[in-house]
């Protein structure tokens, strides 16, 4: 008994000294990769840039903190993502840590050809989150430019992009948050094609990564969202610009709040409506053997601006405004649909709806869906409600123009 006790307790006492501390990694040995950019490489297939945070310069109130730049960017090349990531360790003193990576930026030319070769690495790695935002660097802007950009308001540039996308989704409805997981889900779905947000540097690209850029109130270069990238078979097919992006999000039921300008008695932009709620229902239907899509939207809003003399106390006027809002919404949505039909890419997931409606017919349609989609009849039905008029009923215009 006594011997056994000594034996067991000596083993227990030895445990802390004999273990190699499984998977232990001290914070100070980690390099937090906040964003990762993938460009086309010259010798190897990819050129990957890692945005690594310099904690001392980001955290507030630190001893000697806040002086230098918040981030450092390291680049490496490789034919695969893993190769590039491992090659990067030659340049970084710490272990690259991906669990806090919030953003992956793919350049335009990589997206056109090799995007699919990147996805599995990000999906498979246990450290890497599939909730990471995925965006496309549009046009001349390289992914590296976006990764190495410095931003004024947000100390961490990566926050600027991810937060911006989220707030635009809520307030404007022209961009929506799309992460790697969403992208892959849409990619493998037969009746739906993925989209991604486009981003670009506005202004002098070569200044975007310099601290000088932060010393001005109007920066020489800044990052801005620009359109939606449309994919077909995992390759970048085309872009939907900002004007049409809202229509797309509307059909995807992603619009929450936005502002719409309406024309009143030939006066353009006479009324502004701020939407506070919007709900979209998409259903498929077969008519005469032909598929048809019905989009039904209900939106609610309040009059945020009136630049002409309208008597808002009159319910009939409000009804009129409502019907104008309906028409406007319908118009915007149909334009977006047309745009997508032109690209022959079903980004709305209409195929999925038809599949649900009639799986047998869908099997036949599926083979030639792109063509079918481009000719698909889409009916849009909108119901709009004006709920409030702000804290003013009659605008000053009604007195002023008398």
């Amino acid at each position, binding site marked *: 008994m006594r011997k056994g006790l000594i034996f067991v307790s000596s083993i227990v006492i030895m445990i802390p000294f004999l273990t190699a501390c499984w998977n232990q990694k001290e914070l100070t040995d980690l390099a937090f990769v906040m964003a990762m950019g993938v460009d086309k490489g010259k010798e190897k297939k990819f050129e990957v840039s890692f945005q690594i945070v310099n*904690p001392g310069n980001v955290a507030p109130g630190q*001893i000697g903190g806040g002086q230098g730049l918040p981030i450092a960017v390291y680049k490496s090349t490789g034919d695969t993502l893993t190769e590039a990531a491992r090659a990067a360790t030659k340049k970084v003193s710490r272990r690259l840590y991906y669990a*806090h990576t919030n953003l992956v930026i793919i350049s335009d030319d990589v997206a056109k050809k090799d995007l699919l070769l990147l996805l599995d690495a990000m999906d498979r790695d246990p450290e890497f989150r599939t909730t990471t935002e995925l965006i496309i660097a549009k046009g001349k802007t390289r992914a590296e430019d976006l990764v190495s950009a410095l931003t004024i308001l947000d100390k961490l540039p990566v926050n600027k992009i991810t937060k911006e996308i989220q707030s635009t989704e809520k307030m404007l409805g022209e961009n929506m948050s799309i992460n790697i997981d969403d992208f892959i889900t849409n990619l493998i779905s037969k009746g739906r094609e993925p989209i991604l947000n486009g981003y670009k540097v506005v202004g002098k690209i070569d200044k975007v990564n310099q601290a000088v850029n932060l010393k001005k109130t109007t920066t020489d270069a800044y990052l801005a969202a620009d359109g939606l990238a449309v994919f077909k078979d995992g390759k970048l097919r085309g872009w939907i610009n900002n004007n049409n992006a809202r229509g797309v999000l509307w059909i995807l039921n992603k619009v929450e709040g936005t502002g719409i300008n309406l024309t009143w008695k030939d006066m353009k932009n006479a009324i502004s409506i701020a939407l506070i709620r919007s709900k979209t229902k998409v259903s498929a239907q077969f008519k005469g053997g032909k598929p048809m899509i019905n989009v039904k939207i209900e939106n609610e809003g309040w009059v945020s601006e009136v630049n002409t003399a309208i008597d808002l106390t009159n319910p009939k006027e409000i009804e009129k405004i409502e019907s104008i809002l309906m028409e406007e919404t319908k118009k915007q949505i149909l334009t977006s649909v047309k745009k997508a039909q032109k690209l022959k890419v079903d980004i709305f997931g209409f195929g999925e709806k038809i599949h649900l409606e009639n799986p047998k017919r869908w099997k036949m349609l599926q083979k030639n869906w792109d063509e079918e989609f481009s000719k698909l009849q889409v009916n849009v039905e909108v119901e709009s409600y004006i709920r409030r008029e702000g804290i003013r009923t009659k605008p000053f215009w009604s007195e002023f123009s008398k």
Partner: protein
Amino acid sequence: MLILSKILKTKRKKRQDDNIRQKLDPNLPKDLPILRSSQDNIVRLKEELGKSSDVVIREFKGSNYQGALVFIDGLVDNKVIMDFLLEPLIDTKPLPERVDIFQYLKEHAVAAGSISTIENWNQIYDNLFSGNTVIFIDGYNKAISAETKGWEKRSISNPTTQLSIRGPQDAFTETLRTNTALIRRRIKSPNLWIETMKIGKVSQTDTAILYIKGIANEKIVEEVRKRLNRINIDELLESGYIEQLIEDQSWTTFPTTYHTERPDVVVSQLVEGRVAIVVDGSPFVITAPAIFIQFFQAPDDYYSRFDISTGIRLLRIIAFLIALIGPSTYIAATTFHQEMIPTTLVIAIAAQRENVPFPAFVEALIMEVTFEILREAGLRLPRTVGQAVSIVGALVIGQAAVQAGIVSPIMVIVVSITAIANFSTPVFAMAIAARLLRFVLMGLATILGFYGMMLGLMFMSIHLCSIRSFGVPYMMPLAPFNIRNQQDVFVRFPIWQFTNRPPFISKGNIARIGQNQKPGPPDPHDDRSKGEKS
């Protein structure tokens, strides 16, 4: 003559031998009779007490009798002895003829409240050391014992270890009788039974078992009696001695008996069917059986309304968990699971740790040990230097330590919250268990991260479920779970829903409150209230 002196000598020698034996083994029973001659008794007493200076022997002579009066200075009230014992005894009025002098004196001369006749030698000591005065009368082989207790004692004061905002503010003292009186005053029922025994071979400390006949489980009372009788130690200075000798399980950090210095707490536990053990010389009363959740129930819980006390009790349990796993969570999250910390926070922590030379475990250990040292020092140090320690302490665990680059600011926060959380457990014995296990969990978190912590917590839960207090499972009524006994666990139900005494403690007699105890506005259909109105 020679023979007589020889006999006397051998007798004396034998007596001395007895004395020596007594000194070697204090527990040796000496069933000697009291001698007829008070002179001989005095000689024997002096021998056996080693001429102790506090033993006062006063010989007296009455009209036709003589004797001696023995008491221990300091344990008795001198005034009582002078006025009510000595004065009547040395009265020189002749006694009526043909009376039994012993009986007469006992009835007429000794004017003490409680008197008794002693017939053998052992009882003399019992009486002397409890503050009674022993009177020998020449010619009788028995003695009178008169109660003259009157030693210096501390008066009842406020509780110092278990404070409450609302509720009685008296606490037990070091005197057994005062303590039982405090309880008796609150339970005016003949069913409150007090059994007294002496424990400690040398110290012969009075110990009382209190229970309410009819509510307390007879089996548990018998078990307590058995365990107390088994105790055979030299001295009993505090109820803590007893606690360690009657526990079911010694190998545990968790307390399996409850102790308190508040009479109201003892009363509430007696009424629930528990047994209380009061030890003379200790202001802490033990109650048993104890269950885990009991250590999170503060007296305030029952004195304020149920919604408030439920919230506060939940807070206390959360604080216990923080005290238990605070530092280990920090270690596990910063060295294994950085992905679990929000990005901004992990960067802030990383920035703080940038200048710290130690791994997180060492950092945490330094701070925790420093704090424990401070706390221990604060407890022991003389009151006059208290200020100095708190100033130095604030420097060691604070900005200075951070600026010196030994620890990071976040660690200071973790240590502080742990420390404060630890103090919110109402019973110190439970708080200290968390304090100890915290270090074990810290070690496990260093080796295996959250996985290790979970292993540790699982072992802890299994252990908690395995221990018992006087046969009652420690985790009652959580494990084994009983839905009907949850009135006083995490949620403190309204008093009018406390329908039962905990059946796992008081078997049988468990109905606690009457029907329709729920208060409400006056009933308009009630005849009486109608009548009063008109």
